[in-house]
């Protein structure tokens, strides 16, 4: 397949090249294959055995495939352990499509190059520079730092600081949105303390809300403020993406089911996306050791028990992510 023919046809950019959207199958829209806290690669007491990492992640991807999964989206951007050659080999070996992401955030996860550059004064990067950095990963390829560029990112991912969007987070959001608009790539955001207003920031660069997924809407604070309904009303995708999580931050699966049913009954079944935010392997932090197949294995049966039919399930697991991930060249948007 040549690049020009893929650009002419609807496609999704995976680490092994463009794939027709209807070949993705069931998509886990927000996961991480390898999750490394920036800097942990230098930690004296954390030895990373690359073969072991491969084996662990491959086992989880095979399990996902056996349970009916087709595509895993690695949504943690370009600076949290993303390893493009590893992802290529994992995809080849397991047969699971892997979509990797560009982007960074929140501010606290950035390197000093972006926050205190060697200028006087050390002004943090503006949106335009982030836009250029991310857009290159969508046109020239994803970086293997200081070595080469490989593949094409299929998603731009960024996040705001939990206590509230900072000025640098806002530059990240605007830059990420600009890169998404200029390349027809979708945008994934993790909100800070206000999902709806963060979505508004993402949409100020001319990006339609329908090209954005707002993640973390199964956080307890989002559920309390009914943020998911408002996000859906504005046309963005609703990421209910901590399926299986048992922590202080997110609601439990029972409430998560209620949230999804509520969205479907309100007519927003075409906006819902499900995932687990699982980490295949985590380095430098505890990670989230939930199977990539958690949605298929445990959550979908709960949804069915609450009356969701095959069409609804298929829409949420297959059609919605295919629609979001399809690259829309700007001239044909």
């Amino acid at each position, binding site marked *: 397949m040549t690049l020009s023919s893929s650009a002419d046809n609807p496609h999704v950019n995976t680490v092994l090249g463009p794939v027709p959207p209807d070949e993705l199958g069931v998509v886990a829209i927000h996961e991480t294959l390898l999750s490394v*806290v*920036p*800097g*942990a690669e*230098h*930690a*004296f*007491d954390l030895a990373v055995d690359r073969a072991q990492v491969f084996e662990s992640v491959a086992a989880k991807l095979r399990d996902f495939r056996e349970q009916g999964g087709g595509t895993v989206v690695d949504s943690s951007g*370009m*600076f949290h352990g993303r390893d493009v050659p590893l992802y290529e080999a994992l995809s080849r070996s397991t047969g699971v499509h892997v979509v990797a992401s560009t982007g960074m955030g929140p501010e*606290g*996860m*950035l*390197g*000093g*190059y*972006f*926050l*205190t*550059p*060697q*200028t*006087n*004064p*050390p002004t943090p990067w503006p949106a335009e520079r982030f836009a250029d*950095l991310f857009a*290159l990963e969508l046109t*020239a390829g994803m*970086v293997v*730092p*200081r070595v080469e*560029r490989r593949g094409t990112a299929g998603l731009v991912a960024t996040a705001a600081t939990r206590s509230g969007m900072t000025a640098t987070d806002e530059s990240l959001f605007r830059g990420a949105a600009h890169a998404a608009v200029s390349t027809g790539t979708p945008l994934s955001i993790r909100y800070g303390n206000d999902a709806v207003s963060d979505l508004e920031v993402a949409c100020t660069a001319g990006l339609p809300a329908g090209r954005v997924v707002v993640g973390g809407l199964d956080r307890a604070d989002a559920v309390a403020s009914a943020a998911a309904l408002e996000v859906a009303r504005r046309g963005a995708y609703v990421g209910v993406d901590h399926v299986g999580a048992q922590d202080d931050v997110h609601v439990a699966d029972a409430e998560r089911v209620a949230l999804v049913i509520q969205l479907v009954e309100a007519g927003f079944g075409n906006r819902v996306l499900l995932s687990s935010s699982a980490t295949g392997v985590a380095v*430098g932090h505890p990670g989230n050791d939930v199977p990539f197949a958690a949605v298929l294995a445990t959550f979908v049966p709960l949804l069915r028990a609450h009356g969701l039919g095959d069409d609804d399930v298929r829409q949420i697991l297959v059609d919605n992510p295919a629609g979001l991930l399809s690259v829309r060249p700007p001239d044909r948007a």
Partner: protein
Amino acid sequence: MSRVNTVLGPVAAEELGVVAVHEHIGYGMPGSELDSRWWKTPEERYEETVPKLRRFHEHGRPYGGGTFVDATGICNGRDVDYYRSLSTKTGVHIVACTGFVGGDTALPFFSRASVEYLADQFVHEITVGIGGTGARAGVIKVGVSRGGRMTDLDKRIYRAAARAALSTGVPVLTHLAIDAENAIAIFREEALPLDRVLFGHADDGVNAAKTRDTWIAEQGGRVGFDTFGYETELDDPPFWARPRKERLEHFLRFVERHPGSALASADANCSPLGWPGVKGHTVNYIFEDLMPDLRAAGVDEATITRLFVDDPADFLSIHD
């Protein structure tokens, strides 16, 4: 027995020869590796770097050697395997550091870490090795973040460095000597003798006026005049540049009043990693510009040898 950790193993301090005490093979801010505008091929890197080191080695022959202290922090592109190959092929002793250029160059994993963890990281890199290279760090780098005052993270790093310096015997190099009251308070609390600390960049154009160099020397600290060559007379001076004559006179004044407290270097990049660098500025400024300037100002050979050979050897020696 006096010994210094180089990337190829310990050497006797007597072997070091002329020491460039604060230099960089290549420096980039953390994250600059993601921006391909700065990328160069390994062929280009060696081509830019090897001739500078070979020249440094040749200049150093009359003094018996040549030692390049790389002050590039853990997250700034430090690349110890590369340093080992450069050292083997050029004959220049290279000393690598552990530590951070400043809190604002410590990536999230380290910026969240406790003083105890940071100290363990430094001690491990000094006594066991850096990553899988087997090479041990010979100095600890610390520094003041942009903004002029030590941040809480800067202070945690200084405290961890003091503990690691005390337990391993290697010295500490600072990036910037501003806000020295806070730095010295930490070193005192940790009981690290101040002659084990080189308070660096006391001579740069931005910070010289704000640096209490005399006071630092009076407290027993060493003072780094280690941005020699970043001059306003250059075609593309960086923002920290300073008039050549002004820096030289500052240095001469200081050395006269505080013999034994000053060390000098050029803080040059052989091949910068995440910034354009400054064209034509190399570690060889020490031999080609600074030493001639000192001689022209009447500094005798014994003083030059003391400044570039004896005092740095004492500073770098592991003090058990």
